[in-house]
């Protein structure tokens, strides 16, 4: 009797738990996320490959294979995290807490650098600061007759600067959002207690913002150690290696086992710090608004420091947004990057093939390779946006409806795992899994579907977040109140759910599209001549010395991504509470 009852209860749990749906989603995530990562690990344990671990970590080669790149990677990680927290925190403080003029403008500009791909900033740096050390064209400053020292033209310093210029907006966004929740009552209460400005900053504001600062640091750290474009463009020519460039080089020359070992170590480094940051934050108490009511925005009066601080903020924003874009545009039209603003020609854009210029490469507009790359890249972006958003919505739905039990836990973990994996290591994992035929299935390497699958998996965390936001927005009371009117499922879908969700979904899809458009690190290893992608082409052109083409392609990527981002922001009416006055 009891047995029958418990069986019945079990079968009810079966149905209500959506077990079949959960299993299907788990299977999909398993193939997309878990399998490549497991595979790359298993690959290095094979009898022929196991030696790669000792080669990399403890052999005569390991200094060059691992330790020097690791040292550079850590320098970049810590340097970028420190720089980003300082600059991002400074701007966030100005925008959120003070009476700085043009707060909105600065707040908006500080979010832009993250939309500009890091290879664009790196290319712009090269156009300005390149010296003759590695041959080829020199940059604008040398063209003016200034001698650019090697340390400023190549290697760790410019890589650091470019990465900080790219990632600080990430720190800004996180810290500004946190500061916006610091009730000005907290500051006034400290004022009444008699604390001076410095004491209020150190005793109240910084501790309250600390979790956000740690989050900003660990995110930018992970971004910097994973970044491929900047060290590849500015470091590789002078043999400065990071884990990301080392991984790329090893796979390019066919030493895949060693490459996989480096990839695993890179994942470990990046994940370790993200995990550590997360632990620091969750170990502390959440300081988010303790009460909902009260609190008004009273701004810190900067008085005499107002204009100097504004000038510094404006300089940072202009140098990291407008200047690199202008340099790229100018350099895509200047025959010589040593004279960026003279002899402009549209040859690199619209010219036909001319043996006298750039070894007969036709302008972007007439270059069939670039044109097909453009359509392929846009096609990939659209496809991944659709597949990613659909998958993200399904995952979010499953988690919202049947979010209990170990299966849901696994789905949740798997769907956010790609956040911890640097793009280039993810690419390596996909080569490990799909580089060879699996049973009856053909090898996918070099095919469009592989790019779609990899892109979908890589961006899944963002898509799931979109899906969650959308579901949160439409489910619950809104749907129930429609149900009480007697409207059926399809009626509710048509009248309530879809109209409410469509904007959020479209905005989320556009963000996925943009991320694919400007991504280099994921696709740089998956790239083959049959699947040319714009970002990889730009990188190839740049490393072969055709900077104008590289810059022109980058401008194309920029235009497409900025247009899509603006559209996404519009659709989303993006909530930036710290910009509200």
């Amino acid at each position, binding site marked *: 009797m009891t047995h029958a009852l418990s069986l019945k209860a079990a079968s009810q749990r079966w149905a209500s738990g959506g077990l079949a749906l959960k299993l299907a989603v788990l299977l999909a995530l398993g193939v997309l996320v878990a399998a490549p990562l497991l595979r790359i690990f298993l690959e290095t344990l094979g009898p022929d490959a196991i030696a790669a671990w000792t080669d990399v970590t403890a052999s005569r080669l390991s200094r060059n294979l691992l330790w020097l790149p690791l040292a550079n990677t850590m320098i970049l990680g810590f340097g970028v995290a420190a720089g980003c927290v300082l600059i991002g925190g400074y701007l966030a403080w100005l925008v959120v807490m003070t009476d700085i003029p043009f707060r909105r403008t600065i707040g908006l500009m500080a979010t832009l650098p993250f939309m500009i791909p890091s290879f664009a900033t790196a290319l712009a740096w090269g156009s300005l600061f390149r010296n003759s050390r590695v041959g080829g064209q020199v940059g604008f400053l040398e063209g003016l007759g200034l001698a650019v020292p090697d340390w400023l033209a190549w290697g760790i310093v410019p890589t650091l600067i470019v990465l900080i210029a790219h990632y600080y907006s990430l720190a800004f966004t996180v810290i500004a959002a946190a500061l916006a929740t610091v009730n000005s009552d907290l500051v006034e209460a400290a004022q009444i*207690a008699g604390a001076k400005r410095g004491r209020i900053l150190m005793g109240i504001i910084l*501790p309250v913002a600390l979790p956000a600062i740690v989050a900003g640091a660990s995110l930018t750290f992970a971004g910097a150690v994973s970044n491929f474009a900047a060290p590849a463009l500015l470091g590789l020519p002078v043999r400065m290696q990071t884990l990301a460039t080392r991984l790329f080089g090893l796979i390019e020359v066919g030493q895949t086992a060693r490459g996989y070992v480096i990839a695993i170590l890179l994942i470990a480094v990046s994940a370790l710090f993200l995990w550590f940051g997360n632990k620091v934050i969750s170990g502390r108490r959440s300081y988010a608004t303790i009460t909902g009511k009260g609190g008004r925005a009273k701004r810190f009066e900067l008085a005499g420091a107002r204009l100097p601080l504004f000038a510094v903020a404006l300089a940072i924003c202009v140098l990291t947004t407008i200047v690199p874009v202008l340099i790229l545009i100018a350099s895509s039209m200047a025959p010589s990057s040593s004279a960026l603003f003279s002899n402009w020609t549209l040859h690199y854009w619209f010219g036909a093939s001319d043996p006298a210029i750039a070894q007969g490469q036709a302008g972007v507009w007439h270059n069939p390779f670039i044109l097909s790359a453009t359509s392929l890249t846009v096609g990939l972006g659209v496809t991944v946006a659709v597949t990613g958003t659909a998958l993200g919505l399904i995952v979010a739905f499953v988690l919202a409806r049947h979010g209990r039990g170990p299966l849901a836990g696994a789905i949740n973990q798997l769907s956010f795992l790609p956040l911890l994996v640097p793009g280039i290591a993810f690419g390596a994992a996909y080569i490990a899994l799909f580089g060879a035929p699996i049973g009856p299935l053909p090898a996918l390497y070099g095919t469009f579907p592989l790019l779609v699958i990899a892109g979908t998996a890589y961006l899944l965390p963002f898509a799931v977040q979109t899906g969650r936001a959308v579901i949160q927005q439409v489910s619950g009371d809104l749907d129930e109140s429609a149900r009480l009117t007697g409207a059926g499922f399809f009626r509710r879908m048509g009248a309530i759910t879809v109209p409410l969700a469509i904007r959020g979904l479209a905005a989320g899809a556009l963000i996925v599209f943009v991320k694919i458009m400007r991504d280099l690190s994921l696709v740089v290893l998956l790239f083959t001549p049959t699947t040319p992608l714009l970002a990889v082409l730009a990188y190839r052109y740049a490393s072969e010395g055709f900077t104008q083409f590289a810059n022109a392609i980058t401008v194309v990527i920029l235009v497409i991504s900025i247009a899509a981002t603006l559209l996404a922001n519009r659709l989303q009416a993006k909530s930036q509470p710290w910009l509200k006055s």
Partner: protein
Amino acid sequence: MIRIQSLSKRFASFEAVRSVSLEVPKGAFLVLVGPSGCGKSTMLRMLAGLETPTAGTIAFGDEVVSDGDAGWGVEPSKRNAGLVFQSYALWPHMTVAGNVDWPLKVAGLAKAERQARVTEVLKLLGIEALGARYPNEISGGQQQRVAIARMIAPRPGILLFDEPLSNLDAKLRVEMRTELLRVHRATGATSVYVTHDQVEAMTMASHVAVLNNGEIEQFGSPHDLVRDPATAFVATFVGTPPANLIPVGPDLELVGVPTGAQAMFRPEHLRVSDKPRPGAIALEFAEASPMAGRTMITGTRGATRLTAVVDEAPDLAVGDTIYFALPSEPAAIFAASGERLK
């Protein structure tokens, strides 16, 4: 003692406080009450020194602490005043004891002295067991107590409260009222308390200032306000239930009173019936609620709304006609503009 003279505060084009003057003795419990946007919170922030008045002065005792005409004010921390924020403004990264301790630390007190004082005030508020907890680990009522403990720890001579009970549920609010009065008496300080809830004002205050549109409508004891309202606004704002105002016109003719004036009738002076009576006003029955052995009955018609407190209530359904009989003389008469005529 607090003396406020011709105090005004203008934000850009908006005049939040207009020429307010009042004075309360040491140990008074002054309540500033009024609808939202009436300027009461701005008044409190000027008292705390968080805003500088545009005109007028504030003096604590013999010392002028804010002088709007000179554009000058004593710093918030040098006024010997403490403030409890509506949001409590507890520092989230400090424990309960840490919150209470920090202002003492800033003031430069020695450690032993601080510890003794922290223990003392936590005990006074009955939260000595919560010292090691963080603000988000305790309930709203407990947070409220911590905020009060933090305020009184440095022994301020003036206690300022900005709608401190508005985030609490009804039952806790009543408890905290008593608690606040106890703290007020225990410290012997002068308190200024801002609220939009006239019940709080009536139950707690020794002095009440009713504010509306940045001006004082009336300043006096709770008893004065109910017994002798100075304006139509005060008459309908204070008292439970507040008094009824009926426009003089077709419903109500009074000898020697111009049409458009308003006559005040107290709820306890009205009688109700389900049968028509000569001179009674016919309304639709809206609601009835028992209170302290009597019944409060409300009838409405259009914008007219009358409330009576009676011993015996007729048995009526919502929408039924109910007849309100008025006493022969109104308790007060106000002009259409609101000022008291007699």
